[in-house]
């Protein structure tokens, strides 16, 4: 048997391979479950029910899926250009900080109103973009590897977040009231800065958060940007072959900065959505926002969606269900790391599956070679 490169990639494979990866991942995770003495089938059954079927499950799944859609889109935007921004985690924290600042400053009494909410969206985007531009600038001007710098900044962002609430009397911190002296928390956002949700009459009422709607909108915009504009085309060329892009006269630095800024802005928007949609304050609790690992999970979402923005939304919903079920069921017979194990295996399978997209297996002798040798392996 031999492996050879495909000259054309059939369309059906682009769907079949991720789907197959998911199936394989559940099978492999089942082996992990069995090996540690759990009943795999009943675990999966309960996982599925807790994610999508039980009363209120879909609403909870949406709460988990919304930030994953943002971080997944952030990863997809950058990874498509082979800019490995793995700093969505930190960019989300910074977006949450700047978003909360806008909400606290501009919000007032009364119901949700458009101006403070729009300001939070803009501030979240700006904060995330600024944080992402640090590795972006270093990459564009000093050729510093963005993988490690963007990751290191995640830790710095987490310390900034903790510092603002726990180690200082910052603008974000609640300093009045009895609770403030017992355990430090963020100031609650004023009413007009809380993001509204649309209620669907399903499973006894599901709230569709505003952030979920914005995420879908961002996905459509991103898809348009990458597949229908000159900017997107150039970014793709640059990702596939930096040398070809330079010879064609494309502005490499500018594009790196723009892509990093877009990626960071989307992650930061996810942070603002955390404030406005769900947490209603700047959450620095070590077991709160910082324990969710939305940024890292977003990479799983993006890879499984093969960096296609529209697919990211769908995959975010599935992985969000997994995440939500993991939290709901967490306990003695459902250890907390299980969801991460499954996500890792999903990512491994998706990666292994890429082999099937790029190569084909042939039994027997080599077929007559038709085309010149294709571009080198990526």
């Amino acid at each position, binding site marked *: 048997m031999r492996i050879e490169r495909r000259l054309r990639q059939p369309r059906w494979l682009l769907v079949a391979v991720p789907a197959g990866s998911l199936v394989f991942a559940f099978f492999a995770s089942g082996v992990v479950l069995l090996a540690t003495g759990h009943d795999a089938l009943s675990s999966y059954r309960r996982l599925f029910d807790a994610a999508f079927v039980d009363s209120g499950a879909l609403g909870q799944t949406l709460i988990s899926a919304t930030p994953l859609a943002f971080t997944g889109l952030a990863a997809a935007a950058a990874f498509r250009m082979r800019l490995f921004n793995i700093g969505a985690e930190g960019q989300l924290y910074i977006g949450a900080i700047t978003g909360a600042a806008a909400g606290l400053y501009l919000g007032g009494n009364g119901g949700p109103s458009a101006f403070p909410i729009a300001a939070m969206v803009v501030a979240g985007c700006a904060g995330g973009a600024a944080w992402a531009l640090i590795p972006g600038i*270093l990459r564009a001007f000093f050729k510093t590897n963005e993988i490690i710098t963007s990751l290191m900044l995640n830790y710095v962002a987490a*310390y900034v977040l903790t510092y603002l609430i726990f180690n200082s009397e910052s603008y974000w911190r609640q300093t009045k009231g009895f609770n403030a002296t017992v355990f430090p928390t963020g100031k609650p956002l004023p009413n007009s800065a809380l993001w509204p949700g649309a209620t669907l009459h399903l499973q006894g009422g599901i709230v569709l958060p505003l952030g979920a709607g914005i995420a879908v909108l961002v996905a459509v915009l991103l898809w348009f940007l990458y597949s229908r504009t000159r900017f997107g085309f150039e970014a793709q060329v640059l990702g596939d072959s930096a040398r070809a892009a330079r010879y064609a006269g494309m502005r490499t630095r500018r594009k790196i900065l723009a892509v990093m800024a877009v990626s960071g802005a989307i992650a930061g928007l996810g942070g603002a959505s955390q404030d406005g949609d769900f947490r209603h304050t700047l959450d620095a609790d070590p077991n709160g926002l910082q324990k969710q690992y939305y940024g890292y999970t977003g990479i799983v979402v993006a890879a499984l969606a093969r960096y296609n923005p529209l697919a990211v939304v769908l995959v975010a919903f599935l992985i969000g269900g997994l995440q939500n079920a993991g939290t709901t069921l967490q306990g003695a017979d459902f250890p907390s790391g299980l969801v991460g194990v499954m996500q890792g295996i999903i990512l*491994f399978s998706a990666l292994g599956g890429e082999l099937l997209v790029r190569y084909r297996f042939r039994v027997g002798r080599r077929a007559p070679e038709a085309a010149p040798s294709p571009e080198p392996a990526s």
Partner: protein
Amino acid sequence: MNNSLLVVVLASGVAYGTPLLYAALGELLAERSGVLNLGVEGMMLVGAVMGFWTVQRFHVTTGVSLAAAIGVAALAGAAMAAIHAFLVVTLRASQIVSGLALTIFAGAAGLSSYLGNDLRLAENPARHQFHAIFPASVQRWPIVGPILFGQNVLVYASWLCVVAVWLYLSRTRPGLNVRAVGESPAAADAMGIHVAAYRYAHTLAGGAFAGVAGATVTLAITPQWVDGITGGAGWIAIALVIFAFWRPELCLVGAYFFGALQALSPELQARGIHLGPTELWTNSLPYVMTVVVLVLVSSSGARRRLGAPSALGTPYVREER
């Protein structure tokens, strides 16, 4: 004198730097063979949790128990690395994404946390741990006492490892072959070197080192188990390899430098020294310094001159060279 800030920070810098050193040596071996493994953090955590588990569950004498723990941690790390090796060497997957996948799979919210929870390891502190091996009178010697003689056996073993890796890469035939595989796999292949076998072997060795690095954290530095106990040390180790220009002897220097940065934060806080937002900048310092160091060594000319393996990060496919 031995209580002065500098001596204390240097002494704990050596202790904190040891896991960084083990992990960086392992990553260096893998990268010298052309395999970039970004899963160090995950491999360290699995090594940490399995080493800790061994100490808690096997009731023999301290020495045997600790030795077994180091062995188990090395095996666990190598097992994790095997997944990466299979994906990137055999299946030709992207080394970057596969390494990230390994950290997500094994890391703070993955397998290491799963094992820690499932085996209920967070409940008790370690039953055995590594202690300083020299008598207390020697440790009281001025300056060199705490820094050089106040350490546990893993620190001294890591020095041997540095020498061994250096000798291996620069003075032996297989070491020469590894460097050939990392620089030009096609040429190495033509010489009759089995590229895939070398890449597998060194990725696995890298995993074993990372596993030992993890066990160093849970058995020598903070003898307990908490999810994500390594706190990003695996990533600092990856940066360290670049900082050390892919040379084992410079890994030692870099590891102790970053170890000292990590030691600075608790020490300043313990002495009540406040300089601006102390908690913020002292905690962030190792991460910020990693970024600064990367910028300093990252111009492409510098990288090539300083010894980045040319084939780092690229799969080798005989038909497509």
